[in-house]
């Protein structure tokens, strides 16, 4: 069946901001879908609020709407664009839920409205509605755990009493297991049932018999409209049932299923997708297997492309999203060629000759108050994948890919933390799943504790444990030998088990580079194999490589000039999709300019690790050893000419490696300049020379150093480590005790110690903190002849002190006088010149009154590059990459790549951060200098208020149209509170306030409708009671500068738990009331990026 000709225009719904459970895997799938459908000649309309994505680049769709993804807004887009079909299965849960909301209102999927392709409403409902799904599975003879559905806590109690504890609670229509949990006692059950009902948009939970401890599997299925079904990949969870699959270490292919069991599971997966009725595309079916009997049960299915399918695509080389998009428009599997072999069709099941291991990365250290215990609710913010020929090799590669100071499965300095724990204590710890568990198990195995005892404690399959013990036994052997006595065979055995040079260096107390020299002298160097979907049965056309230690290397030689782009590794708070965007753009720009592009990265969710983004892909850890290996392999493949290396687009990860790569290979700004900006002394000299003022401060390695600085500059001070992105451990310190605490955390085995720690080379920066200053960010590009292009000047909404990544910001600046902006431009040009920047630079300023202070400069891509590119129409990352390889801005203007900014078109672009608090009710939602947002959204409109309103809506903060607003303000914020309260009154809102705020407002003639006590006063109704009562539609609560946090914290947590929208800074409150005022008089209008950029 060829492609459908009755469709001409298709709307793709994206997944919006990066949140826990929905990350850049949907940029990967959406980008593939856009490309495929455009290539097929369809008019592609895209809706996605996330400016950091590659898919929202104006080249990928005919019409790109960076607008909030709510059914109302998407309905406006449909009204405007009149697509023939809507494809909802590539935008994660957001895509599906939005499609269902539109369907329920008769706006899609019914005659006369756009058709739902990929999965229809009935199929989505069957898969997503837990009760319907269970019934459907029983109907086709598949086993499911005994369960029942409830809509109230009372109903839930009834269901629980029939099933018996322990049970698992799963809310309907949720993402990443939000609101899910296992209850073993009636009290736990009541608590979890309520949380689950709250988390479900339709207040429905499924209560099912807990099968924690069973083995967990996933199958990735594809189906075409001729009903051909294939399995793309099987995945076995290393962690047993009870840990969300997104938080589990997972392995592909399945390791401990016999063919008899596997084929039974395969048959069940096909029966499942057919019964649910997913007509075309990819689905993910999850199974649990009782390890004692082999009994299989179906857990759930996702009728769409998912995180697991992105992993399966990267694990096998089979591009699930791309094929799903083709199937959605009518092709059958046998009509689509396999990209990798080109000779064989896509209607097959990939087979692989290596092992893939995925390990999640969490951010508990940024979320004080969280337990750090893993469960049925996903909490990780990113993941790494590693490929090895065996499980030990891939596991060790994955663990060192995490960039959390671990060199593999222990055998590194961080393992010292286990020294003081007894076997019994460690066994008790591994009974509780945490991010540390894998290493604790490694330690137990190294101590010789039996696999039976470990399995008993953690339920992880003995096969995995035995494979890990092969690693720890090898380690013991290595410890008893010396580097000099290693034979080639010894080296090869250790490397084949995944040992890094860093681990060997630790075991022998040698320098890592000595180990490397000795090993290469023994002739033991990595071979690069190819991911080819077919285990070498057919020749592969696509050079997608991984390293291992075997006989044969498969990298093909070529003589074209080549550029290596180092990616950004696992997503984490502070370093995410924005950097992948930059790396991918670099690859596109260089390919267009005739270079051969080589990508190195280890994040399976990304577009950069798509095999056709670059000319060659190395799926490798971003460590010195692994990156040097790739450089050497590429050098050998080009007859001795080393590649140029780009280190400045992937965030801190590649930047940290810049000092370990031969200087002459680094493209763009030299490592010396990078160091000049990072080294505090040199940077101070530079600013002094340029006469650019900085907040007074200094560097400290010890508490005494820090105290000396404070004596000079006075409190409050901003304390932050150098060389860390995302404000990790950054604090505003008001007194001596706090200073001591802050310094203590930065040394030793604090969470930061693990990420690189403190040393003379990496001291702590202590600066006077400027209160009430406005923060400004600039992204600029300088070329080698000295021209500087100011990409964008962004004014932050929240004051300095809130991490820039967590702050909303606007382009162009909204309150700064134009002369201040001009000063900032001039400063930026001077700094870029003084640093001899070749490429991107990001400079941060604080404006206090008429003083402009420079806070820091980073000669690399910043988090805001994609936002600025979309707001201004200047392809900053592409331009910068070309400049790094020697082009001038003038040349790029002539070429047409560099276009003028479109900003004077009378529009304002606002970026807003998206925070993960709804998953962490125990965390204070007040913003601070430590970044905690996982993603961002953008709103563009004709005024700041409207753009801000849109950005809030896109971020999930629905500003209310009516109701009562609750105000509780810090003393310093109270004057601004007068304005906020006035506006709210004018807009017809009711106002409630805490006693102090109410009394203050009364002095200026503003009465409030309701006054409540602070929590600690606790006489009558408290603020928390009021919020819990459901009578408040919006909360404005700003934290006191110091102390007295507890009341505010309780209020903010109450708002978070009861899902009442809230803001925690007075600046955001002012912006919000402005947005409400400007939006009140007209309906929300949508505009495509192409129109905004004047390209339509």
């Amino acid at each position: 069946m060829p492609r459908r000709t009755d469709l001409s225009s298709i709307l793709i719904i994206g997944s919006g901001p990066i949140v826990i459970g929905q990350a850049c895997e949907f940029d990967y799938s959406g980008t593939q879908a856009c490309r495929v459908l455009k290539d097929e000649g369809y008019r592609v309309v895209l809706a996605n609020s996330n400016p950091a994505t590659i898919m929202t680049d104006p080249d990928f769709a005919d019409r790109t709407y960076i607008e909030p993804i709510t059914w109302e807004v998407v309905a406006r887009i449909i009204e405007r664009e009149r697509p023939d079909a809507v494809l909802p299965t590539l935008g994660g849960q957001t895509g599906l839920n939005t499609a269902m909301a539109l369907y329920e209102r008769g706006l899609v999927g019914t005659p006369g409205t756009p058709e739902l392709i990929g999965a229809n409403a009935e199929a989505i409902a069957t898969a997503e509605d837990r009760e319907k799904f269970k019934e459907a599975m029983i109907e086709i003879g598949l086993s499911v755990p005994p369960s029942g559905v409830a809509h109230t806590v009372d109903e839930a109690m009834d269901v629980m009493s029939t099933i018996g504890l322990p049970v698992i609670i799963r809310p309907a229509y949720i993402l990443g297991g939000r609101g899910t949990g296992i209850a073993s006692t009636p009290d736990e059950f009541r608590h979890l049932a309520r949380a689950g009902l709250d988390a479900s948009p339709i207040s429905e939970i499924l209560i099912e018999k807990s099968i924690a401890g069973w083995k967990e599997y996933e199958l990735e299925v594809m189906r075409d409209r001729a009903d051909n079904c294939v399995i793309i990949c099987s995945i076995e969870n290393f962690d047993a049932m009870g840990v969300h699959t997104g938080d589990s270490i997972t392995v592909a292919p399945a390791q401990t299923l016999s063919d008899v069991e596997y084929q039974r599971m395969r048959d069940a997966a096909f029966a499942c997708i057919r019964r649910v009725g997913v007509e075309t595309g990819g689905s993910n079916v999850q199974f649990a297997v009782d390890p004692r009997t082999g009994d299989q049960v179906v857990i759930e299915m996702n009728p769409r492309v998912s995180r697991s399918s992105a992993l399966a695509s990267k694990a096998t080389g089979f591009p699930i999203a791309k094929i799903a998009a083709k199937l959605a428009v009518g092709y059958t599997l046998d009509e689509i060629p396999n990209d990798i072999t080109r000779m064989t069709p896509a209607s097959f099941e990939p087979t692989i000759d290596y092992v893939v291991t995925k390990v999640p990365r969490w951010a508990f250290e940024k979320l004080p108050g969280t337990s750090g215990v893993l469960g049925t609710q996903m909490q990780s913010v990113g993941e790494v994948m590693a490929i090895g020929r065996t499980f030990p090799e891939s596991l060790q590669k994955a663990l060192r890919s995490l960039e959390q100071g671990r060199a593999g499965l222990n055998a590194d300095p961080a393992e010292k933390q286990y020294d003081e724990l007894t076997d019994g204590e460690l066994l008790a710890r591994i009974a509780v799943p945490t991010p540390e568990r894998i290493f604790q198990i490694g330690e137990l195995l190294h101590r010789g504790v039996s696999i039976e005892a470990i399995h008993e404690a953690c339920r992880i399959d003995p096969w995995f444990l035995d494979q890990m013990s092969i690693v720890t036994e090898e380690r013991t052997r290595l410890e008893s030998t010396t580097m000099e006595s290693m034979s080639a065979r010894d080296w090869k055995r250790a490397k084949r088990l995944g040992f890094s040079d860093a681990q060997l260096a630790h075991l022998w107390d040698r320098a890592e580079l000595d180990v490397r020299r000795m090993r290469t002298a023994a002739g033991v160097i990595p071979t690069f194999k190819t991911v080819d979907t077919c285990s070498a049965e057919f020749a592969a056309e696509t050079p997608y490589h991984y390293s291992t230690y075997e006989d044969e290397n498969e990298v093909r030689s070529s003589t074209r000039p080549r550029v290596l782009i180092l990616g950004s590794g696992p997503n984490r708070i502070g370093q995410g999709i924005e950097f992948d965007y930059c790396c991918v753009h670099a690859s596109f720009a260089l390919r267009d300019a005739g270079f051969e592009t080589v990508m190195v990265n280890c994040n399976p969710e990304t577009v950069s690790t798509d095999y056709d983004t670059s000319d060659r892909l190395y799926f490798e850890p971003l460590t010195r050893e692994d990156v040097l290996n790739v450089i050497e392999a590429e050098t050998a493949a080009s007859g001795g000419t080393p590649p140029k290396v780009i280190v400045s687009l992937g965030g801190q990860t590649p930047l940290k490696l810049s000092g370990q790569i031969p200087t002459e290979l680094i493209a763009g700004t030299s490592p010396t300049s990078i160091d000049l900006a990072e080294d505090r002394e040199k940077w101070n000299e530079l600013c002094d020379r340029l006469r650019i003022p900085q907040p007074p401060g200094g560097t400290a390695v010890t508490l005494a150093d820090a105290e000396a600085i404070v004596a000079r500059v006075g409190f409050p001070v901003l304390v932050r480590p150098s060389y860390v992105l995302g404000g990790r451990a950054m604090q505003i310190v008001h007194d001596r005790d706090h200073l001591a605490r802050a310094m203590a955390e930065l040394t030793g085995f604090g969470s930061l110690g693990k990420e690189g720690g403190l040393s003379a080379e990496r001291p702590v920066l202590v600066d006077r903190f400027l209160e009430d200053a406005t923060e400004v960010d600039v992204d600029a590009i300088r070329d080698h002849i000295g021209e500087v292009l100011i990409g964008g000047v962004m004014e932050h909404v929240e004051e300095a002190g809130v991490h820039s990544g967590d702050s909303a910001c606007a382009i162009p600046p909204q309150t700064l006088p134009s002369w201040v902006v001009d000063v900032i431009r001039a400063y930026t040009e001077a700094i870029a010149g003084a640093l001899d920047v070749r490429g991107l630079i990001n400079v941060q300023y604080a404006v206090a009154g008429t003083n402009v202070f420079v806070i820091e400069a980073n000669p690399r891509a910043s988090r805001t590059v994609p936002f600025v590119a979309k707001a201004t129409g200047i392809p900053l990352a592409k331009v910068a990459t070309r400049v790094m390889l020697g082009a001038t801005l003038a040349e790029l203007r002539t070429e047409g790549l560099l276009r003028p900014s479109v900003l004077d078109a009378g529009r304002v672009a606002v970026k807003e951060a998206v925070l993960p608090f709804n998953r962490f009710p125990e965390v204070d939602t007040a913003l601070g200098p430590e970044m905690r947002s996982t993603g961002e959204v953008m709103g563009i409109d004709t005024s700041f208020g409207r753009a801000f309103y849109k950005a809030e809506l896109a971020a999930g903060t629905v500003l209310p149209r009516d109701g009562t607003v609750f105000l509780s303000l810090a003393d310093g914020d109270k004057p601004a509170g007068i304005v906020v309260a006035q506006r709210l009154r004018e807009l017809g809102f009711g106002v409630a306030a805490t006693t102090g705020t109410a009394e203050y407002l009364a002095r200026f003639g503003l009465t409030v409708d309701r006054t409540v006590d602070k929590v600690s006063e606790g006489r009558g109704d408290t603020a928390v009671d009021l919020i819990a009562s459901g009578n408040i539609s919006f909360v404005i609560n700003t934290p006191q500068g110091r102390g007295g946090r507890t009341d505010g914290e309780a209020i903010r947590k109450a708002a978070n738990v009861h899902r009442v929208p809230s803001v925690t800074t007075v600046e955001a409150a002012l912006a919000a009331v402005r947005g409400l005022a400007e939006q009140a008089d007209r309906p929300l209008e949508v505009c495509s990026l192409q129109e905004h950029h004047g390209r339509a």
Partner: protein
Amino acid sequence: MTDRTTIPGDIVESHLVLADGSVFAGEAIGAPSAVTAGEVVFNTVLSGYQEVITDPSYAGQMITFTYPHIGNYGTVGLDDEARRPHCRGVIVRDLARRESNHRSESSLDAMLRRHGVPGIAGIDTRRLTRVLRDTGAMPGAFGTGSYDDLLAAARAERGTDGVDLVATVTTDSPYTVHGGPLRVVAFDFGIKATILRCLSEIATVEVVPASTLAADVMARRPDGVFLSNGPGDPAAVPYAVDAIRSLVGEVPLFGICLGHQLLSRALGGDTFKLPFGHHGGNHPVRHETSGRIEITSQNHNFCVDPTSLGGRVAVTHLNLNDRTNEGMRVLDAPAFSVQYHPEAGPGPHDSRYLFDQFARLMNSRSEKTGNL
């Protein structure tokens, strides 16, 4: 349940040498052997190593598994495709030293030792597969012996062309597997247990030696005759071709793999050797009348040339990877056959409908002839 046969430090060096002189270093597993020679082939299944190793069709061959971890879930008697393995040896990247599965009765290493099958582990099986892909299945030898001895053995190995390997695997005497209402006589050219299981769901199966004459088969008054899978070159089994020629048109026939090739030769067609054969569980085959895709289990080096059959057959199945023939239906007689393995064991169950098709064919014939 725990076997620790290859504890570190206890490694016995072993080498694989191909007839072209290339060497692969590894370590000995399974039964001890100084020199074991055979035709080296590869198989790309991710699970099902036990079924592959015990499949009689691998007689004369040494099986390279492309998936690196082999032995993870142990072995269980129920999954054996024959009473003992007929392959000459096993070549793997990594043999699990501890298996884990509730069904397992013994480790793979123990099973190999029990049956005297030697193996070699630690091999760059991907490099080996790429050699075999480019040059075709090649004679080779592995073991703890010297390079010269191994090379000599590899060169002395004549491969499977023209060799009657069926005689080495077929049953000595007839036996019966009781089951469904129909009566099937199955030629044992190296029949797999899973095929017998599938056939017994529709019929009582009388398994007869490969050399059984057509008249002896007909004397058993079968509703249908099954032509099994088996090892090697169909041209080396002329006696079976003669028997089948006499049966075509006399009784419904169903052939699988070697049975498919023998049926085609009985009809006067040709078979030829594929460059490196099909050995895996993921090959797409299109059923030509419905257009449906079946993911199939495959294990063959020889292939039917349908153009050599003139107009006597309709091609029913096509391999979508290399467009070779995968199945046919005889136009003027009740007979059909497929090149791949619809019974699976190991592999997908997409094609098990063919056994029902055989049952229907027999039932319709039985009604006509009143032979019930």
